């Protein structure tokens, strides 16, 4: 076997691939061949490193040099400078935004310092399309341990003791779920992996499946042994083609190796996994809808009980867990419940993966211990707000979550604390907003999403959310009254209390939490007809300052509707009736003469 002196890890996640990651891999291999270093250097396509902001990422092993924003053209230089001459290519190193110094080792970057990687342990470390590398990282060892050394009850006890809770949003204790399914008598039971990641801006499940698919397969087999089922199904949305490809390869390799299939490890235990594709409906993340969708029915929820643990897929007991939940299982078995329970807060153990998005410097995927504060996540790991703007709010939990503000920044993040301040953990989306974002518009954006995604089965969700949206729309047009605000709150609470499933029970959260935390902003829209953030087009006017305008005519030339008039070298004027508020004139003006009022 060739003994490589250097490994070059190239991110093969969807984000970095979109920035020509594949070409980088090809060019690196070519450059290695050009320098006759095939026996010394191995180029590996891995899963996501998480630092998507500066992708594509290339990491050099063994000296741990972390190159960012690499282009295919850089490949030759990396090989000739770094590998042949032993010099780091300074211009591709990450520059610390505060000290302005180059940081070569990722361990020294603020982004990675506070992270603990359990679910993402193999992402950006192994080649997800090679089962050998997973096995070398003790892969399928946890399955072997459970099958040969433990009874299902003993294994379930470890999961219960670890304190692991569902990572898909609900936070139900995983061990308890397994125990309930285990106790139901039936000749056939199903293990389902929920990979229907639907929150806008969330991509943690996709990244795990793309970067470490075997960890999910292994955990599903462990779950199958624990509940007494031999069928695994992964419900994945068809819009994740790369994750589907890698899962297919992983399932094929696992069958070939004999860790999926009949008589695994000679213990007589059978388990196999199949894929089921979803069409990307948000409601199908809810477990009863998901099961109906897999059965070929409409993706609509049904009343619980009966819970899927008792009567799920094809009426058989079914255990549904989320991708990230499964990815934690092998580590808990291998390292023990105490290890996992030593991380986190009293009621929320372990780590959580968050997808940072919005107006934040380091957009990307992070895994942090429960109990870390929002401030640490946004400012230490996330690198603060873009362009030096002021932090305004952070939206957690996607369309089901709420918007938190400055005063919540120092609360330790866990399931219960987030619920207590009117938001939720959700699947781990985290969207950061700055002073330029209008909170009414943000609430309207999420409502637009839930109105679209409501399955229409129950009236509170189908009709109620639509009415909420209409009131919000009125507010952003400056046509609402204070009475409307009362209706908005009342209706929101009714929808929460009376909807059939999780979608409707949580959809008013963005509205209610912004009303609580940004009351002034709602009042400004309603009472003064103003949008303080300058986002609501109906409430603003573009005005040219008579003093500052020099009459260069640039604005009148870019105006798409000819709403700006004025003679050369004379102050120009905007016809506010004709103006469509596109902002093109303001972008073009070199004298800052145009403002929003």
């Amino acid at each position: 076997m060739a003994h490589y002196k250097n490994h070059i890890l190239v991110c093969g996640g969807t984000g970095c691939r979109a920035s020509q990651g594949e070409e980088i891999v090809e060019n690196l291999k070519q450059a290695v061949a050009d320098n006759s270093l095939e026996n010394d250097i191995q180029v590996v396509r891995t899963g996501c490193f998480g630092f998507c902001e500066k992708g594509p990422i290339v990491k050099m092993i063994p000296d741990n040099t972390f190159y960012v924003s690499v282009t295919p053209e850089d490949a030759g230089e990396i090989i000739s400078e770094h590998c042949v001459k032993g010099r780091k290519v300074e211009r591709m190193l990450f520059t610390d935004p505060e000290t302005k110094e180059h940081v070569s080792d990722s361990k020294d970057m603020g982004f990675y310092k506070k992270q603990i990687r359990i679910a993402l342990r193999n992402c950006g470390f192994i080649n997800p399309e090679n089962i050998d590398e997973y096995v070398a990282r003790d892969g399928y060892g946890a399955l072997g341990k459970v099958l040969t050394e433990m009874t299902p009850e003993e294994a379930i006890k470890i999961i219960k003791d670890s304190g692991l809770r569902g990572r898909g949003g609900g936070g139900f204790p995983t061990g308890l779920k397994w125990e309930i399914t285990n106790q139901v008598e039936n000749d056939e039971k199903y293990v389902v992996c929920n990979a229907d990641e639907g929150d806008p801006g969330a991509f943690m499940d996709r990244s795990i499946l793309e970067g470490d698919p075997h960890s999910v397969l292994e955990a599903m087999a462990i779950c199958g042994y624990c509940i007494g089922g031999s069928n695994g199904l992964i419900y994945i949305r068809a819009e994740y083609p790369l994750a589907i490809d890698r899962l297919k390869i992983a399932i094929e390799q696992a069958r070939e190796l004999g860790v999926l299939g009949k008589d695994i490890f000679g213990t007589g235990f059978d388990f196999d996994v199949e894929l089921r594709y979803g069409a990307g409906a948000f409601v199908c993340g809810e477990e009863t809808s998901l099961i109906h969708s897999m059965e070929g029915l409409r993706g609509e929820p049904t009343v619980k009980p009966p819970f899927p643990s008792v009567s799920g897929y094809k009426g058989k007991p079914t255990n549904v867990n989320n991708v990230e939940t499964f990815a934690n299982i092998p580590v808990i078995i291998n390292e023990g419940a105490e290890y996992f329970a030593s991380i986190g807060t009293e009621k929320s153990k372990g780590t959580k993966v968050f997808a940072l998005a919005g107006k934040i410097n380091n957009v990307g995927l992070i895994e942090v211990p429960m109990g870390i504060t929002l401030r640490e996540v946004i400012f230490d790991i996330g690198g603060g707000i873009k362009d030096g703007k002021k932090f305004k709010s952070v939206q957690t939990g996607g369309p089901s979550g709420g918007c938190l503000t400055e005063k919540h920044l120092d609360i330790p993040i866990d399931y219960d604390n987030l619920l207590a301040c009117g938001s939720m953990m959700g699947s781990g989306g985290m969207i950061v907003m700055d002073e330029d974002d209008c909170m009414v518009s943000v609430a309207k954006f999420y409502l637009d999403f839930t109105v679209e995604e409501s399955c229409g089965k129950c009236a509170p969700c189908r009709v109620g959310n639509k009415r909420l949206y209409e009131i919000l729309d009125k507010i952003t047009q400056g046509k609402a009254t204070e009475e409307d605000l009362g209706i908005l709150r009342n209706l929101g609470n009714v929808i929460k209390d009376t909807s059939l499933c999780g979608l409707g029970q949580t959809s008013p959260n963005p509205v209610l939490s912004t009303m609580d935390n940004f009351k002034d902003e709602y009042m400004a829209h309603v009472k003064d007809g103003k949008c303080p953030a300058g986002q609501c087009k109906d409430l603003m006017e573009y005005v040219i300052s008579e003093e500052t305008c020099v009459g260069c005519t640039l604005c009148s030339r870019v105006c798409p509707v000819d709403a700006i008039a004025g003679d050369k070298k004379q102050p120009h004027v905007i016809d506010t009736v004709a103006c469509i508020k596109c902002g093109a004139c303001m972008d073009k003006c070199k004298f800052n003469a145009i403002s929003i009022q």
Partner: protein
Amino acid sequence: MAKVKTLDDLKKMRADLQSKITLRENSDRPEKMVQIKVSMATCGIASGAKETMNYLIEELDNRAIDAVVTQTGCMGYCHSEPTIEVHLPGNDPVVYGNVDVKKAGEVITKHIVGGELLDGIIPTNYTTPDEDNQK
């Protein structure tokens, strides 16, 4: 691919595959490993640094010593190439000059395994920014 029929099969397979990724695992925690830097500038390569480096990597692997061998640029001791810097966990780094394959073997047996210093040490009178950070 042969099927694994028992857990022992898997463990054996893992032991065989381990070395494929030890390099990556070790580079994650270099402070706990033996770190060796081989000076690989033009002068070093001309004097045989490549052979020295290959030998170090293979021999350390044969002896199952957890070590990270990296190449570095010119250390400035062109009179004594090939030069290597040996950094045992918890000790100050030591630079050896004129390290051919034979000398490299001695460094492994006597310095890294035995913990005794050899002749041929080049005294250093500088620290690198990395070392400053660790202090």
